[in-house]
């Protein structure tokens, strides 16, 4: 019987990376977490720590989204949903920051 296998399911199978990549990402995330703790224990200005640690946290979040949530292989249209929410949060953060810096 000639029944075509759904294209969607075929694509999902093809787009998934291998086990080695997943374990590599996990290792990288664990190392980054330990780095955050080590950096915090070093002497230096708090603002530098804040920037570096939050930068590492952001990179970790992006790595999880791209590889574990498969956004890298899903296409840009699906990624617009979380991106729209993130833009909203950035707008809120900038507004909050302005109220502080401008003394409102």
């Amino acid at each position, binding site marked *: 019987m000639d029944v075509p296998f759904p294209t969607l399911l075929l694509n999902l199978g093809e787009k998934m990376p291998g086990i080695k990549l997943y374990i590599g990402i996990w290792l990288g995330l664990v190392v980054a977490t330990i780095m955050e703790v080590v950096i915090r224990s070093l002497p230096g200005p*708090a603002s530098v720590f804040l920037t570096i640690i939050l930068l590492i*946290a952001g990179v970790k*979040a992006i790595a999880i989204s791209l590889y*574990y949530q498969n956004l890298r292989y*899903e*296409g840009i249209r*699906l990624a617009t*949903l979380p991106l729209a929410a993130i833009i909203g949060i950035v707008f*809120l953060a900038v507004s909050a920051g302005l109220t502080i810096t401008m003394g409102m």
Partner: protein
Amino acid sequence: MNDDEHTEKSKSSYMPLIIASGVAIFLLGLAIYIPVLVAGLIIIVAAVYKMFKDGAAEKFSGTKETPEEETYPLESVTNEKLGLWIFLASEILIFGSLIIAYAYVRVNSGSWPIATQTHNVFLGMTNTIILLTSSLAMILSLYAIRQGNVKGLKIGLGSAFALGIAFLVIKLGFEWPELISKGFTITSGLPASTYYVLTGLHAVHVAVGLVAVGYLIFRAYSLGFTSSKHIAVENVGLYWHFVDIVWMFLFPLFYLI
């Protein structure tokens, strides 16, 4: 009624709208009057029951899965996944707003306790690694079922579940009691209340995720997943990874900075 009309009708449901209204009434009741909260809860439960009765249960069991009909409006994305991403976008707004509120309060506050002296960094780091490992277990379980490896799926889901439990045990069984014994309670000031609200909300999300993973385990042992029917594993995984992502920010904000 022809087939097209039938298909169109089967996709339509007012229940999500009613559930959303129930949630709004529930939250309103939480703020103003408990009986309103109960009314909201009744609406939610009744609507969810009706939705399942209308056929969602058959779909979850895999007997009614028809991928060709479930990809509107994005051709390459199933409706379940699209709906889940809309939900996750709303979750980003909730956690993002709370984190910004926390940062705002902290910046405007005259004094704030030093994070590394108040919180147990080792336990926080351990919990971070536990969550990361549970995410790995979850993605490997999805990988396994896509290869048709049901045993691998069961091992992955079981590991993710056990690690989620371990996270909650460390959080609620060790960290919180230790903090409370030191007088760091939810009423002791802004540093404590912001900490308990954000980490508490995150813990609730982990608990909800555990229920969902528990459901997947139950299905893996009873109804079964196959290499072509495992959409629930993928969707629960997306949620589980999101919970992981939120913690990637909460850990440095509360334990390191």
